């Protein structure tokens, strides 16, 4: 039968030992596409193409999934809203105090005292008492000193005077009273002022001061949360995707044409790309907004460098955990069995994160964190926090990256073997040992 001869030869037409007779493809125009593909590249290129097809499916189906389409913009909006709200209400805006033109000396004293005490106050000159009162009423001043005398100030406020401003004003009033007494006693005001200004304190620290930069620690915490959430979201998605293929038996059709490693790597790369897109989106919205609104009092360069490192560590962490989640998912055949195998991995993500986020704000250079930032399974969670907080040395980062990369390289054949051994077996849960043996 001529049909059978044609079918046979085009099946292995790209093997050198079996030359296809001329016209074999020509008889079936429908087969032209395949002939061109199979003949066009080497086996390795064809294998890569299969992986990209799997990646393409993962990315396109997930980008269009409701979960992604709704959650991602929602989280971006929430992030932007959070930063804006912090910028609007979180920062302490300076309080403005109005002074009469006659009280210029008191106004200068208030500014100086405020500066010394680390309280941000602004002294504003008002035309007269009525003007001051009007400005307090319409909210452009927090308080106005409408009369002053040796016995102190009369301060007009809308409802109440906050304690810090009250303290400052009281100090200035006492200073005024003191000045008046010194003048009354015939003292040299200029000399007193100079002596007072010269008096300062000399601090002797018994231990080296801790370097604390709240803005960077905050950045570290946010970075940590984002990586943690991404790993905790997309790791189980990998396992779930593997179980979905097993439970729906698609895997049986796929494995007729795709090797297990192609299916596994395509899934890991595809889902990792989705997570990366999401994280990059957060960084692209969050970092410029936070710097622009002054929520992050860091240079854009520092913030972007930190965001860049976060993406690197997300990728490392994802690769590490996605391999483990894929292997874990391949052991079970039903979605309801998945939590049993993914829970230990989730604990491996949650515990370092909780330790990190608890220790970091108090002690960014803690020894415990330094160790955890080098241990491969916790490094992706801890190291980016330390980098963002500015407490990771270059050698530490390099060592952490190297150890994690080595671990990933070691996990590829191990998890690949478990996956290949387990993914074809449906029914009961497959033991890791059995999977390794048959993989």
């Amino acid at each position, binding site marked *: *039968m*001529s*049909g*059978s*001869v*044609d*079918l*046979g*030869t*085009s*099946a*292995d037409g*790209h*093997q050198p030992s079996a030359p296809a007779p001329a016209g074999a493809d020509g008889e*079936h125009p*429908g*087969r*032209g*596409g*395949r002939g*061109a*593909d*199979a003949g066009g590249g080497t086996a390795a290129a*064809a294998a890569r193409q*299969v992986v990209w*097809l*799997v990646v393409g*499916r993962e990315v*396109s*189906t997930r980008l269009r*999934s409701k979960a992604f389409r709704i959650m991602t913009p929602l989280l971006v909006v929430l992030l932007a809203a959070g930063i804006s709200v912090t910028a609007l209400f979180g920062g302490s805006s300076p309080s403005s105090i109005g002074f009469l033109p006659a009280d210029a000396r008191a106004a200068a004293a208030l500014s100086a005292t405020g500066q010394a005490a680390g309280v941000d106050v602004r002294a504003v000159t008002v035309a007269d008492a009525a003007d001051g009162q009007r400005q307090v009423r319409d909210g452009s001043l927090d308080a106005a000193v409408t009369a002053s005398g040796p016995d102190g100030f009369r301060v007009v406020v809308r409802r109440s005077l906050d304690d810090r401003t009250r303290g400052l004003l009281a100090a200035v009033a006492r200073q005024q009273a003191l000045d008046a007494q010194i003048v009354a006693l015939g003292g040299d005001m200029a000399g007193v002022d100079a002596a007072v200004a010269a008096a300062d304190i000399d601090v002797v620290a018994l231990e080296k001061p801790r370097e604390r930069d709240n803005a960077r620690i905050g950045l570290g915490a946010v970075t940590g949360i984002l990586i943690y959430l991404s790993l905790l979201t997309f790791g189980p998605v990998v396992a779930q995707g593997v179980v*979905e*293929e097993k439970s*729906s*038996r*698609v*895997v*049986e*059709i*796929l*494995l*007729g*044409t*795709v*090797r297990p490693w192609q299916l596994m790597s395509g899934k890991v790369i595809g889902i990792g790309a989705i997570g990366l897109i999401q994280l990059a989106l957060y960084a692209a919205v969050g970092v410029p907004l936070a710097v622009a609104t002054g929520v992050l009092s860091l240079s854009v360069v520092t913030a972007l460098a930190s965001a860049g490192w976060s993406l690197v560590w997300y990728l490392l962490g994802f690769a590490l955990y996605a391999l483990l989640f894929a292997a874990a998912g391949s052991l079970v055949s039903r979605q309801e069995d998945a939590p049993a195998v993914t829970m230990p991995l989730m604990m491996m993500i949650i515990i370092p994160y909780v330790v990190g986020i608890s220790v970091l704000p108090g002690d960014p250079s803690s020894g415990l964190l330094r160790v955890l930032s080098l241990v491969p399974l916790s490094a992706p969670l801890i190291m980016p926090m330390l980098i963002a907080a500015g407490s990771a040395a270059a050698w530490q980062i390099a060592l952490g990256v190297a150890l994690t990369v080595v671990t990933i390289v070691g996990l590829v054949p191990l998890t690949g073997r478990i996956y290949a051994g387990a993914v*074809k077996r449906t029914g009961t849960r497959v033991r890791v040992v059995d999977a390794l043996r048959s993989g």
Partner: protein
Amino acid sequence: MRDGALAIDGLSKRYGDIVALRGMTFDVRAGELFGFVGSNGAGKTTTMRIVLGVLTADAGEVRYDGAPLTLATRRRIGYMPEERGLYPKMRVGEQLEYLARLHGMSAAAARRATREWAERLGIAVRLGDEVQALSLGNQQRAQLAAALVHDPAVLVLDEPFSGLDPVAVDVMSDVLRERRAAGVPVVFSSHQLDLVERLCDWVGIVSGGEMVAVGAVDELRAGGGTALVVDAPDAGDGWADGLPEVVAARREAGRTVLTLAAGADDQRVLRAALATGPVHEFARRRPTLTELFREVVSSGPPPGRPATGAGEDAAGRRSGWELRFVGGSLRVRRKGGQR
């Protein structure tokens, strides 16, 4: 030998203590529709899964076109698994295109083939729907489209007819016949034996993990002994039990259906029937595939036989079977070309 045939040669598989296959051997030639029948657990699905590489055999091999199957040749098989498998949340059209591309088709060819098969199988309007939104019958059609979309050189279908309405059965039958005409070896399993009888050129009956009878449908029926249908209303149950000519007897709609031993004298049976009273009908009948199947399966494999590799000859061990049986019979079949 380059013949475009699918050869299953001496497959053995065991799961722990359970022997699933013992030397399963048969071949499906190019342009042949092969019906694969057997009771549940006989080894049909295991055989098919080994052909597709989903399972690995302990022994034996599968050849296509004279060469052992590789991933490259497996890509040319269209497979419909027993437990249907498609992504539930993926659109039918995208899924078919994806599968076609995985099998090596270009994007344009995949799109074209998806369109063509969807129209042929009557699911063109559902291409934009998710698989889980389809009725079971339409899911089945989508599954068949998935097996066919990459223009396979071999078709392996596990229970393709189960759950189909009569119209869909006709569509499916037409498609299988058409593939056969295109020179594709087609093997499918089914419990609908009347369908197998009508559709197939060759039938293989499996029992206990091995092929117990294989041959052209007509030859199997002709060689499967003779059935006698006797309508003797006054005869009680078991009237024919003592007759040496009778191998098996059962009641069917008030009549007795007897299976006779080879070369038996039916006139003695008639006399025995007349002895019970009037006989309204006495007819010879070739057994249906269902009857053959029932007899083969009920005789079962000999107990205590160990799982063995290829080549063990089971010929002659089954009652009433004069045909080419397993093992050597296949070689006879190939050389002799009984068609």
